[in-house]
């Protein structure tokens, strides 16, 4: 990368993007296509971000279907390819499935990394340039880096949620984090205690099933099996849970851990049951902290949520207290949206945050990449409800918006922004899901500054272009 190192020397730019994982690449790509004077810097030596090292068991959870009801490279195909980044040029689309074989519908880490690298060939990045500190001034920010200072009016931080984070449990400092766990074979024949029953905990449990004598997972909250059954992480969760149900080696405990003590050749774990009260005094040969990750926010001074791990963001992914500091990638989950019926956004995953990055770039640029011609307003909105990958990937989070008189496409917007924004009479449509998993169109009509919400009925084939939907929407827009 020696030649590329000369890109983006320190100096003044309109926008600086920090990071070269999928979030940074996607934000940088759209900013440059919108004509923004953007410099992208990364502490890494190569593109790919977290996929350069994780997941440790080498297989992702997110789908890319090689065969789908539509052609690879089309907008509709994005629906079936949850891993590729978005591009205006056909040759930059669907790059992850292009790396995949047919043994799995989810890519390996290497296939994902190769797909990111293929995309990154079209996104200039100054690699090996570490952001170290920040100064805020009237015009924006000065980012102090290992290569010098960068001035900008806005900065997009795509830092990932990748810094190992540990719960405040006495003794946890003596055990490795998921990020530093040994190879699976090093746990052969051992009893392994995993702190945490979320993604990384169950990834460990699943990966260690063929090796460890026993895997005990523990955290205070019960596993939400009903929610998991409909989520992409079910692959990893349900196998260890099935083993637990069969009375195999796995145990999934609902317990608050009081402390971890080193013993001669292993560990003692003292805990207290939550779902079923009572003390636990357990022994294990090894303990791994699968307690999650945080965002390396350094000295930005942004408000945070989730015990300081995630920046608190506005619906357009800007810090709630530091104007001009935007966040892309996994960190965009700091803008939770309306979370109607408890359904969260897909912003922690590529197939969700790639759309956030496009809208973020348009917001910063102050203009949109394209505008649909609306000849048949009702037909246009119903087609979006049935086919738009943005609305299906980000259910109840992103909406297609159209002003009413005259009908004009206002693009995709965060629903949380639309419902609170003032403006001309307009309609927003989004695909929503309720707590039971029913999928239905949500219609939000704003007239004279007042908002009216209507939920249309679900349809077994999700065919929202049928006549009954046309009649219902016509009535709402009359």
């Amino acid at each position, binding site marked *: 990368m020696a030649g590329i190192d000369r890109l983006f020397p320190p100096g003044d730019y309109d926008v600086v993007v920090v990071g070269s994982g999928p979030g940074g690449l996607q934000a940088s790509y759209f900013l440059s296509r919108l004509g923004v004077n953007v410099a992208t810097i990364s502490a890494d030596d190569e593109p790919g971000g977290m996929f350069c090292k994780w997941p440790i068991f080498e297989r992702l959870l997110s789908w890319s279907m090689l065969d789908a009801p539509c052609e690879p490279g089309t907008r509709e195909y994005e629906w079936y390819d949850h891993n590729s980044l978005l591009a205006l040029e056909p040759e930059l689309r669907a790059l992850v499935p292009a790396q995949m074989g047919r043994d799995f519908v989810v890519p390996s880490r290497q296939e994902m990394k190769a797909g990111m690298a293929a995309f990154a060939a079209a996104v200039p990045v100054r690699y090996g340039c570490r952001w170290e500190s920040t100064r805020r001034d009237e015009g924006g920010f000065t980012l102090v880096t290992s290569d010098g200072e960068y001035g900008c009016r806005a900065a997009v931080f795509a830092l990932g949620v990748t810094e190992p984070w540990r719960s405040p449990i006495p003794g946890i400092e003596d055990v490795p984090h998921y990020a530093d766990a040994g190879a699976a074979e090093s746990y052969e024949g051992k009893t392994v205690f995993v702190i945490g029953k979320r993604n990384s905990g169950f990834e460990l449990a699943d990966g260690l099933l063929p090796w460890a004598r026993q895997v005990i997972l523990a*955290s*205070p*909250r*019960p596993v939400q099996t009903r929610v998991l059954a409909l989520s992409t992480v079910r692959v990893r969760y349900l196998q260890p849970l099935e083993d637990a149900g069969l009375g195999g080696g796995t145990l999934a405990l*609902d*317990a*608050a851990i009081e402390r971890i003590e080193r013993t001669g050749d292993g560990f003692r774990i003292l805990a*207290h*049951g*939550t*779902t079923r*009260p009572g003390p636990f005094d357990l022994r294990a040969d090894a303990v791994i902290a699968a307690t999650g990750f945080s965002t390396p926010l350094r000295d930005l001074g942004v*408000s*945070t*949520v*989730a*015990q300081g791990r995630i920046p*608190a963001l*506005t619906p357009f992914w800007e810090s*709630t*207290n530091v104007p001009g500091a935007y966040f892309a990638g996994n960190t965009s989950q700091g803008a*939770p949206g*309306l*979370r*109607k*019926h*408890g359904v969260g956004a897909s912003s922690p995953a590529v197939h969700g945050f790639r759309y956030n990055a496009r809208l973020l770039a348009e917001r910063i640029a102050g203009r949109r990449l394209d505008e649909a011609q609306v000849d048949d307003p009702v037909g246009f909105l119903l087609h979006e409800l049935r086919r738009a990958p943005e609305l299906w990937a980000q259910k*109840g989070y992103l909406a297609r918006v159209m002003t009413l008189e005259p009908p004009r496409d206002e693009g995709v917007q965060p629903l949380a922004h639309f*419902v*609170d924004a003032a403006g001309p009479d307009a309609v927003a449509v989004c695909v*929503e899901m*309720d*707590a039971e998993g029913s999928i239905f169109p949500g219609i939000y009509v704003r007239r004279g500054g007042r*908002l*009216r*919400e209507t*939920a249309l009925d679900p349809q077994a084939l999700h065919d929202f272009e049928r006549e009954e939907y046309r009649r219902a929407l016509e009535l709402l827009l009359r």
Partner: protein
Amino acid sequence: MIDVESLARLALFADLTRPQLEAVAHAVDEQRFPRGTRILREGLSGSAFYVVVEGEATVQIGGEERARLRPGDFFGEVSILTGGAPDADVIAASDELRAAVLAGPELEPLLLDYPKLAVRMLEVEARRLRSANRWQG
């Protein structure tokens, strides 16, 4: 997820044991709202249950302030338990409002798991009802 200490300070959770508090802390989300942000929206379905951890909020109907909410106060439960949309807006009224947020569908299971929490909530609802009756009288 929110830190256990933040929940431990709130009257609603005063009867829970430490392990129970940890389980609840893992079940709720933490959210921060800048001044003027709408947290609960009149007429909009599918909303969540909120407990104010830091800061203040106002309850508004038709733009008119009806009540002020402070740390320990909660809102959103009526529309969840009755299945309707909220009758009022709740708007952040301090520089930053920090709240513990529980998804609507998870409120009833939480109350069933921790009946003492349900009793605490009922006590507050009873006081609110008595106060509303006096005001109307």
